[in-house]
């Protein structure tokens, strides 16, 4: 999936991935897509939940050998 920016949260646990995602998304423009790389399983539920809570769009997720990639579109 194509993204406008990437955030590396591999090795980080809660609340770091969502904290950093929130900060990183502030730098993006509306309509742009952020790719978050993570290794903590929690992100699979947390990223969609964070999007539901903030009104941003959860586009999708990919998983490859323990590395999880989530894609979030800034809509707010």
């Amino acid at each position, binding site marked *: 999936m194509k993204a406008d920016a990437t955030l590396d949260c591999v*090795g*980080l*646990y*809660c*609340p*770091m991935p*969502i*904290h950093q*995602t*929130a900060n990183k998304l502030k730098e993006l423009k509306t309509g742009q897509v952020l790719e978050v790389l993570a290794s903590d399983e929690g992100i699979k539920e947390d990223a969609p939940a*964070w999007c539901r*809570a*903030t009104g941003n769009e959860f586009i999708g997720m990919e998983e490859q050998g323990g590395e999880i990639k989530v894609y979030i579109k800034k809509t707010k």
Partner: protein
Amino acid sequence: MAEKMTLIMFSGDMDKALAAFNLAIGGASIGMEVSMFFTFWGLNVIKKNEGPIKSKGVMRKMLNFMNRGGAKRAGLSKFHMFGMGKWMMGKLMKNVKSPSVQELMVMAHQSGVKFIACTTTIGMMGLGKEAFIPEVDSYAGVATYLADAKDGRINLFI
């Protein structure tokens, strides 16, 4: 107007403080207006780590000597084992790059979380504002907490 979240930090335990700051940072990350009210043992979390704690009277001096406080001194609520449990927990946290109470506290404040210190406990313990970290936004009482909590979507006592 942003939705509000309030946390009462009553405990001064390290594990409970970790949970509280984690929640506060999470709240801020979903755009909530978060405030943390530090009272009783919870005041220890926002005491300065360095320097003497001044107070008047024998009982207060004794209390403040035994209850020095400072985020770095916070012990575990379980398996503290005179600091050995805390040391091990710290090691485990470092291994997984988990931030310490102090680091989370800075992060929370930078994310806009407001820190309120309870003046009643401060008065009872005979402490001055100089005992507390500069990140404390205000010194107040129950009405300040309730005014926020009344409009709060999430209010927690920890």
